[in-house]
């Protein structure tokens, strides 16, 4: 017993410890019950998921159970929205908190052949409002067939201090004024 009194005991801290059962004397704790694998995994899950990069694997991971769903949402840094109307921007920013790169697709491909009315939609503004409030760390924005105004570009320039890459493919609605703000501010 006496040796234990002067031990600098490392009890791991409540947040990290899986089982903080104390060891007494020199014999060790015979009552120790190993935590189950899913308990152990839950403690380190976020760190593991950082190394899971493909969307396919991440989507599968988020369906394993509720705690995996939460851990996956917290660690996802790249987001791909295949259709800007398939999910609301608020729902996305509520679920994913650490996004650094986002790709959003707007109008369907046949809009390239003037088969959609001119004011069909796919406005970036709705997404931008939600993103500006939640994704300060955003570094990369990729938009395809979206409507982007000069005002959107000004908000983009002011809202994302770490922005490094802005890609617009087949987007419309903006002019040189908007681009000038991006060039000046970013």
């Amino acid at each position, binding site marked *: 017993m006496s040796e234990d009194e002067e*031990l600098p005991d490392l009890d791991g801290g409540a947040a*990290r410890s899986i089982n903080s059962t104390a*060891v007494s004397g*020199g014999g060790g704790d015979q009552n120790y019950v190993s935590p189950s694998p899913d308990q152990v*995994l839950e403690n380190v899950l976020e760190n593991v998921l950082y190394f*899971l990069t493909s969307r396919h694997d991440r989507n*599968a991971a*988020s369906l394993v*159970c509720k705690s*995996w769903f939460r851990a996956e949402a917290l660690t996802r840094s790249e987001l791909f929205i295949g259709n800007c109307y398939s999910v609301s921007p608020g729902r996305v920013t509520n679920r994913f908190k650490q996004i650094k790169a986002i790709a959003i697709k707007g109008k369907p491909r046949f809009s390239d052949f003037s088969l959609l009315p001119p004011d069909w939609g796919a406005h970036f503004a709705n997404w931008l409002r939600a993103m500006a409030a939640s994704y300060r760390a955003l570094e990369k924005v990729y938009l395809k067939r979206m409507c982007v105004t000069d005002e959107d570009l000004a908000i983009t320039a002011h809202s994302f201090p770490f922005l490094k890459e802005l890609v617009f493919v087949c987007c419309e609605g903006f002019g040189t004024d908007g681009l000038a703000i991006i060039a000046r501010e970013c």
Partner: protein
Amino acid sequence: MSSSTELTEKKVFLLKSLDGVIFEVEESVAVQLEVIRELIEGDCARPFISLYNVTSEILALVIEYCKHHAETCSGGTSATIADEDLKTFDNEFMNVDENILLELCSAADYLDIKSLFELTCRTLASLIKDRTIIEVRKMFNVENDFSVVEEKAVRKEFAWAFK
């Protein structure tokens, strides 16, 4: 390698596992455990340290890992050869079943051994990669606590939004 005078001064620590097994390790190995390095730097390290969350089976593996890394880094070989050697060792070291891997990961987290923690996390992620949801649940014995409605809602979102 150390000279004979250094040898006589070489500090040794005794690490006691959760189940009471005592391991003798040299300082160069002990300092790889960040928790112990901090104790040493703060002059609080006693020669006998109890580790509450690590079983002897896992602690033996952790010490093997730290020993190899300490020896390779101080072995006088060139950086590239040492790197290669560590890579080969790490790959073989990770060739354990997933339960051991999980316990190693958890121990590396608790003992704050950054390189081992990253290695085990990376390996665990590679086990999850390309597996179906059912396979992952089975591998880690995870119970699906989604209701049918909830799971359907998440799946529906993937179909359009996050595919």
